[in-house]
């Protein structure tokens, strides 16, 4: 392989605990990590190394499962097993807790900001997906509660350009939601995975969706316009199987280069590249690079830097987060 994935730095972000998620801020200058130690840590680059800029402790009573930056970069949302979602506001180099969103019956598994910055989505083990609206006074209000899944909802992600939401669940399905008369409803159910779908990622244009599952495959879904006009139709156009030895916990589509990164329970990090020769309806992806022992335990998350092409962050059950560089020679 001409391409390679090389380690830039490894940081023991959440000692004696799991590092569940890492997220780059919109400008690509900071990384937020969260873990089983109930804390959120903000990391910044100082010269060649990444150092901890601040620690957000006491925001949650239990594990912080995911963190998400607002599109403007001034807010951070954290989803926790304590059934709450905390909204933090950036104040110089620190963050202060602005508000706590309550309502889910149990563990909140994911939080995601819509590209518009006005909407927030959360999902939980209580099988529901909640959509919240933010107004000018930083007031959050729940606009919809949707119960389209029959099991734990693991992940929610917004479409990059349209007001469309996707969710992944333990029930093996992916649901796509659209707003209709102030209410968000499930417009399409994508079936195909034979086990829990852990993660979702839209490509830069939002025409395709990648999903990672416990069935050890990654599926690529493409939207097809329906003759009826209203309802959405998504079909699976590609399945990557045989690459992952265990569950695929996370997938991330690089908005700058179009390559797809995956995080797996087999401790490896992989990068897939689409073959140029194949058409959009039958894409073929091949393994461009992999690090088989990227971490000493399950890799939980992969995240591409939104501004610097090829810079990838990963984190693991071993409590570390790592920065990698993907380069094509």
């Amino acid at each position, binding site marked *: 392989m001409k391409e390679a994935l090389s380690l830039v730095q490894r940081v023991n972000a959440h000692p004696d605990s799991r590092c569940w998620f890492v997220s780059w801020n919109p400008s690509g200058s900071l990384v937020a990590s969260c873990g089983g130690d109930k804390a959120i840590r903000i990391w910044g680059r100082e010269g060649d190394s990444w150092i901890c800029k601040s620690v957000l402790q006491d925001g949650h009573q239990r594990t912080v499962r995911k963190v998400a930056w607002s599109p403007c970069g001034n807010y951070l949302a954290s989803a926790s097993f304590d059934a709450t979602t905390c909204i933090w506001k950036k104040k110089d180099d620190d963050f202060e807790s602005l508000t706590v969103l309550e*309502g889910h019956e149990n563990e909140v598994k994911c939080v995601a900001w819509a590209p518009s910055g006005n909407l927030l989505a959360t999902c939980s083990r209580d099988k529901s997906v*909640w959509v919240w609206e933010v107004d000018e006074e930083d007031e959050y209000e*729940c*606009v*919809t*509660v949707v119960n389209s899944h029959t099991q734990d909802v693991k992940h929610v992600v917004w479409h990059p350009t349209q007001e469309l939401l996707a969710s992944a669940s333990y029930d093996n399905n992916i649901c796509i939601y659209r707003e209709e008369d102030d209410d968000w409803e499930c417009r399409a159910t994508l079936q195909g995975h034979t086990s829990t779908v852990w993660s979702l990622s839209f490509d830069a244009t939002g025409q395709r969706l990648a999903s990672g599952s416990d069935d050890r495959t990654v599926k690529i879904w493409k939207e097809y316009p329906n003759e009826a006009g209203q309802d959405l139709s998504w079909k699976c156009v590609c399945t990557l199987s045989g690459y992952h030895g265990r569950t695929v916990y996370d997938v991330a589509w690089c908005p700058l280069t179009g390559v797809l990164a995956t995080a797996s329970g087999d401790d490896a990090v992989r990068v897939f590249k689409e073959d140029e020769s194949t058409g959009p309806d039958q894409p073929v992806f091949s393994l461009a690079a992999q690090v088989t022992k990227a971490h000493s335990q399950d890799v939980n998350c992969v995240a591409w830097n939104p501004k610097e092409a090829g810079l990838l962050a990963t984190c693991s059950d071993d409590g570390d987060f790592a920065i990698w560089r993907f380069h094509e020679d």
Partner: protein
Amino acid sequence: MVHRRFTDALTGRKEKQMAGKQMAGGHAQDDLFDSILLADERFRGEGYHEGFERGKCRGLREGQRHGASHGAKLSTEISFYHGFAITWKCLLQTNTDIKSRKRLKALEALLGLIQNSPHEDPQSPTLQGDMEKLRAKFRQVCSMLNIPTDFKDYIKTSEGTSF
């Protein structure tokens, strides 16, 4: 015990039949044997039918109890939401600020869902789905009103899951 009696009866009958053979025709003989040989099957059949009828009655009673219990739980839940929505509507009706208007709109939507739910028709195919929508709407309204949804003391959903 029964077996011996049967055998004795059979022997006894046979003797009588032998005697009877000399007296009557062949038909009576066949019936006699049939009634013994097929006795097991006949009693089994009678027993089955009797049991079936009894079971049907029992099943009906149990079903009625089950249905009544579930119906009561469902009605309790829906009427709880109804009372809740009407009360809040009364409380917020006179407010004109934007927040209250948004809340009223949500309350109206909740009342609409209650009115349109097929709660009078247990066989309705949309009952489950509509109940899910109703519960979800209720949770959303509670969130908007900043009310914690811990009503465990008042209701339990008909799924048995604690509210």
